[in-house]
């Protein structure tokens, strides 16, 4: 009720944008993982009433290990999803026409974390070693990188032995793998929290080697974007979300606490979320939501260079649009 009153008030305030039927427009957002600071911008926009000011009722739907956001989108369970570009483009090629409408994350937080005593000093040394990675659409950047380095992923002395890890860093800690894929804002700190000191590790950031692919972007179904009302709703959603991100980047500590409040599982800890927020702020810094076409092209090129088993077989057409961000930034 409180939400309804608030949004009704906001609706009046926003004047021209008000909808004819007097109800706040609804947006269902599917996250690609559980509630954590990686999604702080959206929770901040919700908590600080930025969505209400745009006359939007936003439902944030947390993801999890067995939730594929594109499938939720296809099934009508959400209006927009957050997704990494490789996985979204793969979904697009497999018959789900999703379109990038905004790109809050301008940098990649993906990196390889290796034991320093494994003798790996640069990515080319990976041949003959074991790497653990999570698979669920997140493995594409790694496969492309190895293909560019001409390192096979079928094992052997001159190839990488690839393991499909569960969703923790145990394979690295147990030394079942010499390297593991980690995010600067999440898994890396799980390794540190397990009692490993940073100088026992070597890390290779995808961003530093020019093989990074775009991560958390906002995607919607192509057919919906033909509807001007939907585009307007998305523009307001993106505008409020980017306000949320700007606030979160300026007030990382408060943002992390807001995220913790919304974590219904109670699984997240304050220390971890504070650190995550600090790292995530670096990834969104300098972005206004508008997709950088050069970064898009680099992502597509990286994915197309996937060797014998490329992630996408042809350069996608119409996989992004500036319509929404242009409208959002017009004010």
């Amino acid at each position, binding site marked *: 009720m409180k939400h309804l009153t608030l949004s009704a008030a906001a609706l009046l305030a926003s004047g021209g944008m008000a909808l004819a039927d007097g109800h706040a427009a609804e947006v269902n957002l599917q996250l690609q993982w559980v509630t954590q600071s990686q999604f702080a911008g959206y929770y901040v926009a919700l908590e600080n009433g930025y969505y209400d000011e745009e006359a939007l009722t936003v439902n944030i739907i947390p993801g999890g290990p067995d939730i*594929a956001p*594109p*499938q939720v989108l*296809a*099934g009508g369970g959400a209006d927009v999803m957050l997704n990494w570009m490789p*996985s979204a483009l*793969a*979904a697009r090629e*497999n*018959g*789900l026409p999703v379109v990038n409408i905004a790109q809050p994350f301008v940098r990649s937080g993906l990196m390889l974390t290796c034991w320093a005593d494994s003798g790996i000093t640069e990515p080319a040394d990976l041949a003959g070693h074991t790497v653990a990675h999570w*698979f*669920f*659409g*997140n*493995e594409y950047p790694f496969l492309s990188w190895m293909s560019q380095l001409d390192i096979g*992923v079928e094992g052997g002395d001159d190839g990488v*032995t*690839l*393991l*499909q*890890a*569960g969703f*923790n860093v*145990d*394979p690295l800690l*147990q030394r*079942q793998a010499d390297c593991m894929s980690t995010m600067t804002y999440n898994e890396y700190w799980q390794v540190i929290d397990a009692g490993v000191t940073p100088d026992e590790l070597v890390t290779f950031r995808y961003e530093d080697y020019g093989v990074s692919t775009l991560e958390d972007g906002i995607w919607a179904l192509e057919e919906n974007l033909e509807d001007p009302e939907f585009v307007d709703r998305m523009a307001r959603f993106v505008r409020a979300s980017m306000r949320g991100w700007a606030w979160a980047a300026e007030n990382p500590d408060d943002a992390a606490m807001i995220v913790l409040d919304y974590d219904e599982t109670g699984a997240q800890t304050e220390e971890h979320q504070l650190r995550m927020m600090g790292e995530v702020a670096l990834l969104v810094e300098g972005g206004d939501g508008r997709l950088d076409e050069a970064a898009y092209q680099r992502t597509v090129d990286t994915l197309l260079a996937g060797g014998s088993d490329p*992630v996408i077989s042809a350069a996608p057409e119409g996989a992004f649009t500036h319509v929404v961000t242009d409208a959002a930034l017009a004010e």
Partner: protein
Amino acid sequence: MGGAVLAVVLVAILDWRAALLLAVWLGAWALNAWMAQASVAGARILVPVVFGLTLLTLWELAVRLFEVSPVILPAPSAIALAFAANIPTLWVDFVQTILRGALVGYVLGCGIAFLAALAIDRSAFLQKGLLPVGNFIAALPIVGTAPILVMWYGFGPSSKVAVVVAMVFFPMLVNAVQGMKESDAIQRDLMHTYAANYWQTLLKLRLPTAMPFLFNGLKICSTLALIGAIVAEFFGSPTVGMGFRIKIEVGRLAMDMVWAEITVAALAGSGLYGLMALMERQLTFWHPSHRSVRN
């Protein structure tokens, strides 16, 4: 008959696509009913075949007519194409998951359970001690044990074998223990009067009477073994295997490939179950439940 036509016409007013589906369904039903009544030659095989084909036809029609997105439910024809195009991949996954994981675990788990049942049968002490432990292991959820077993036994097939052993042990044990109790006291007394020793009684009397129970256990475990081996791969695996493939193909929304793997699992499961049922038929021909077949 008139009622069926009327129903189709009524539905057609609302939605011609639903009416078409209904018509196909009712038509196939009528065909099957007629074949069963008129005792058409080969009806015992034809009826289930027609039923299966009807389901596939309805699936294909529904997906096409209602334009269901392939990432929600692919058509059977698309699944068949994916199956045909990926036979080498499906084969290495089959070898990894079914042959090296499920089957090895099945044989090991059922074998150990059988030996444990023999031991329990001989000792009241074990009966009080082992059965509760078996029960305890059976109650462990696979999502809890699989990650731990992967950590203990590595990412390869050995951890999948361990998961399968843990899953099939208890159902097999309970059935085998019950089976060992099946022979009557009077039958055992008769063996005693023949001066048969323990092993002779076991081989000639008690194992044969236990057979229906042993096969019950083996049949239940045949499907459990497949589920265990596939699900365990979700929690860690090399880059091959049916569970691994299902997981990554869901990630890239290639649902036709996911269904192709499901088809392989269904075929393998039915095959193993059928093999057990066939062996049961051969070995327990004397059992009352099979007598009617020869009428």
